[in-house]
């Protein structure tokens, strides 16, 4: 197993958020309606958390090939919102304590973690 997962990045745009809302059937205005979102505690539109989380699956697939996702396990926490025009990057490094898994994170363009957790590739 390599020490690092292949990094995967994505710019979060409103059209991408809109398409993701369509796929998930999630009409939550916090993701779609700027006027509504401005009045919430988030003070603006935030992206679906899983829109960024999916980059971790892509990092696993790019590192080991998509077949290695069969049998894979992942555990994550959402710790910071992602906003329109943020650029998020998924990465991971071998966990010294449990070498068969990776400590993973998604960070924004400021280097702040938005998702943290661990992932174990499948067979």
């Amino acid at each position, binding site marked *: 197993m390599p020490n690092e997962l292949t990094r995967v990045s994505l710019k979060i745009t409103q059209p991408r958020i809109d398409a*993701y809302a369509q796929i998930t059937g999630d009409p939550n205005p916090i993701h779609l309606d700027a006027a509504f979102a401005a009045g919430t505690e988030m003070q603006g539109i935030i992206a679906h958390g899983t829109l960024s989380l999916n980059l971790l699956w892509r990092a696993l*697939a*790019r590192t080991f090939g998509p077949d290695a*996702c069969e049998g894979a396990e992942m555990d994550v926490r959402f710790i910071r919102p992602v906003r329109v025009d943020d650029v998020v990057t998924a990465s991971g490094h071998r966990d010294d304590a449990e070498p068969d898994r990776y400590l993973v994170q998604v960070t924004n363009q400021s280097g702040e973690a938005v998702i943290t957790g661990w992932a174990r590739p499948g067979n």
Partner: protein
Amino acid sequence: MLSELLTYDRIQIGTSLGAHETCIDAEALALWRSIYGDDVGGNQDIVPPDMISAIVMAAQLELTNPHPDGGLHAGQHYLLHHRPRVGDVLSTTSTPLSKEIRRDRRWVKMKTETRDQNDRLVYETTLTLIWAA
């Protein structure tokens, strides 16, 4: 769709919310590629592995609909057993595992299972949610 708003108080631990069926077709894959640029799936006949959360979230939203606006996802745990094929009919069930109020927040854990049309288990997840009301 539920007949009443699924508030925190109405969530019943251990009682399934039912099943939601979906089918990933060419149209859904095209929309997926419009977001991520490609599908990292390798074999084009197999659903890309990174679609797991979207499939589960779509089912979870439908099975808990209507629910109070303003909820948050705090964490998720995934086990991906098999990658379904494009065109498979995927059935996802959701069952509340636990709920508790901590620091004025309503924490709910839900377990989902997704099976294909042959009853093969493809995904399992545990969702940690903060319920809005």
